[in-house]
């Protein structure tokens, strides 16, 4: 039969029907790793002619983060294909990362044959049960003919409403069983109605406009929901019409250009002092598409307590979850802003903006260029040399916060960072996904020495495909963010953070045939970065040897109020934070 496909639908097997459907849905990339239970699906990649490209990774976690990076750089989902048991299990962290940050993705896992389910078959895991809390939805397929319908439902669920990952678990007898169904069947999801996000009550819009008209010190908080709804233009119109300052969440970075005079940068735990001051002193907060994450609100009871709050969110379950707003609008951000924008006029915010400008001058983001190389300097110079146009992916920790502070984003989909989950090891594979999605853009992967070592095996994937990623490893030989907490709150007792035994990252890159540059002196940064950014024949690794014990400021201790922000190292010992991590 091989070679004869696809002649008629009777000749297809389940796996081939699945692959044809994914191709038909417009999936461009499949990231994956093979294994016994998935062989029929991998075989279908060979027997079915598609436009899809398969990328063989080195670990399933890498595959999921690549699909995540692809989606964060484009807004479109990619697919992941892994085998059963450990293969599927290794996707859990990546699924959780995508779920927390509302990233669309379709993960297909092989599974043991149906008659062995629940009998501890070789490489069997109940991945359906395991992943329920970390996916938007999941399936265990019981009939080969259901595969196209399920794939189409999965795509619809992953990409509409509040996006998220969907997992499809496919037993081996289902993938290799004969297919005699419809490749494009209708489907019905009676419990899922994302279209309601576009029906907005006119009364709510009027109330929002009335609240806005009364404001004297308005602030707009733009989250990733704004980006997903592609509402950057409407956001700009709102901000410029009202002359209201705009702060963004970590994931919202870029939806409002951070170089704009009304931009306050990122708010929250390590956000700018002026963004946090604006939250404290505003009389109206317009939250567009942010879920009031605990990193940005500090203490819920004290957050914006003197201000009116309008919360626009597509997810009804976010209503009042962290902050009870004066007006909740459950809607798509673009649809809501379009309607609000029709009902607003200019506000006189001159005094308010002048006050915030004063804070900008009083508390600028800064760093020292003496006493060793600082991560901030490397990031700052990367920003200037790339003219702020690169797609930047980060890992998690100090470097992530400095990157958020010093790499100012001008556009949506140019900032890839694991926010909700805080997944170390995310950044580098995400950059691979982004570079595949956007071959003509400069992609910079910024990691610390800790996180980079969690997924560095994907150097092989980057090298094979000659992806011109600038892989920046900011090496301070510590898990710096935890060390910072231990210094500030645990009497400097470092515990479990000393990464003694780090490899020579340049030699490591060399082992994969990847060139590298090494930076240790602040004076060398510009020259070495220029050299690295000019290299486009494949990946290049930039190993920056940084000072070991630097701290990220400003800082709001977890669970403290925004008023408790510190902008420099405190002279006295601080109480242990009460908030989460």
């Amino acid at each position: 039969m091989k070679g004869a496909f696809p002649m008629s639908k009777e000749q297809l097997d389940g796996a081939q029907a699945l692959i044809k459907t994914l191709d038909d849905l417009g999936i461009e990339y499949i990231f994956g790793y093979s294994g016994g239970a998935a062989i029929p699906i991998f075989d279908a990649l060979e027997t079915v002619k598609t436009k899809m490209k398969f990328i063989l990774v080195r670990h399933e976690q890498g595959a999921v983060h690549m699909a995540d990076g692809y989606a964060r750089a484009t807004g479109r989902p990619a697919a992941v294909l892994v085998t059963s048991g450990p293969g599927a299990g290794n996707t859990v962290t990546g699924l959780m990362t995508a779920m927390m940050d509302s990233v669309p993705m379709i993960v297909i896992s092989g599974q043991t044959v149906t008659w062995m389910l629940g009998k501890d078959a070789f490489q069997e895991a109940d991945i359906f049960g395991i992943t329920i809390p970390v996916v938007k939805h999941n399936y265990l397929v019981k009939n080969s003919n259901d595969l196209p319908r399920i794939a189409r439902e999965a795509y619809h669920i992953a990409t509409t409403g509040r996006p998220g990952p969907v997992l499809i678990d496919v037993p081996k007898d289902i993938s290799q069983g004969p297919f005699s169904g419809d490749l494009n069947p209708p489907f019905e999801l009676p419990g899922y109605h994302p279209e309601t996000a576009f029906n907005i009550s006119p009364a709510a819009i009027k109330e929002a406009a009335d609240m806005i008209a009364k404001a004297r010190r308005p602030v707009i908080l733009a989250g990733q929901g704004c980006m997903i709804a592609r509402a950057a233009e409407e956001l700009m119109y709102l901000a410029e019409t009202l002359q209201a300052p705009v702060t963004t969440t970590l994931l919202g970075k870029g939806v409002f250009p951070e170089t704009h005079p009304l931009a306050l940068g990122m708010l929250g735990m390590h956000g700018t002092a002026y963004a946090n001051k604006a939250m404290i002193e505003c009389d109206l907060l317009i939250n567009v598409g942010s879920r009031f994450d605990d990193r940005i609100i500090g203490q819920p009871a004290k957050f914006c307590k003197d201000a009116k709050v309008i919360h626009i969110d597509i997810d009804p379950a976010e209503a009042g979850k962290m902050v009870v707003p004066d007006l909740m609008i459950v809607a798509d951000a673009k649809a809501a802003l379009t309607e609000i924008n029709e009902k607003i006029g200019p506000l006189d915010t001159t005094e308010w903006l002048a006050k915030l400008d004063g804070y900008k001058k009083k508390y600028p983001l800064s760093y020292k260029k003496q006493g060793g190389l600082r991560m901030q300097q490397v990031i700052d110079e990367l920003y200037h040399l790339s003219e702020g146009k690169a797609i930047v992916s980060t890992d998690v920790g100090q470097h992530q916060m400095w990157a958020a502070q010093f790499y100012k984003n001008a556009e949506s989909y140019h900032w890839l960072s694991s926010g909700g989950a805080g997944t170390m090891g995310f950044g580098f594979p995400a950059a691979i996904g982004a570079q595949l999605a956007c071959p003509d853009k400069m992609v910079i992967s910024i990691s610390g020495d800790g996180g980079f070592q969690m997924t560095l095996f994907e150097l092989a994937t980057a090298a094979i495909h000659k992806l011109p990623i600038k892989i920046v490893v900011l090496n301070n030989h510590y898990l710096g963010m935890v060390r910072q907490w231990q210094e500030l709150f645990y009497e400097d007792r470092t515990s479990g953070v000393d990464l003694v035994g780090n490899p020579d990252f340049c030699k490591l890159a060399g082992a994969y045939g990847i060139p590298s540059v090494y930076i240790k002196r602040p004076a060398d940064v510009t020259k070495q970065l220029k050299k690295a950014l000019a290299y486009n024949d494949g990946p290049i690794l930039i190993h920056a040897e940084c000072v070991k014990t630097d701290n990220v400021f400003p800082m709001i201790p977890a669970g403290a109020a925004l008023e408790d922000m510190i902008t420099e190292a405190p002279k006295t010992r601080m109480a242990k934070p009460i908030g989460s991590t």
Partner: protein
Amino acid sequence: MSQSIVTTDTPIPAATNRGATHTLSVLVNNEPGVLMRICQVFSRRGFNIDSLVVSQGRNANFSRMTIGISGDPKGLHQIIMQVSKLIDVIHCSEHTSENAVTKEMILIKIKCSPAERSQALQITEHFSGKTVDLTPASMIVMITGDSAKLEASVDMFSQFEIIETVRTGKVVMARGVQPT
């Protein structure tokens, strides 16, 4: 000496207070795993499931779950939204005794000699119950009603030796013409 494991529901002296109780009616797709999805939402938010009744609807594509939960009432609205958000949930709503009929059934098995029988039957009749099994030494009584009535009946039957009780858990239906 081997120790037998007691599997009957002998009451423990002081029941721990888990917060206010609520009754949710959830209409769901009749699919494997739906119960697991819903239970995870409750357990993650620290709500305890006190009773649970699941049965297929008239349309076999759907099932009806009636879930009695206890936990912080402040979090209830949000938890309803989180349950509603599940793709397999058609709708989820809270019901109170004012806006809905709540019924439950209990089977009570007592040790009962012929001499004690008439008294047991009297209690059964008082609660509009029925005897559904009778032996020279025992009796099973079936009683339906709201939870408070069932608890009162158990109190009354405590004068006998109760071997075990089994409750169905409560089901609710909205009063009047509107659907549950």
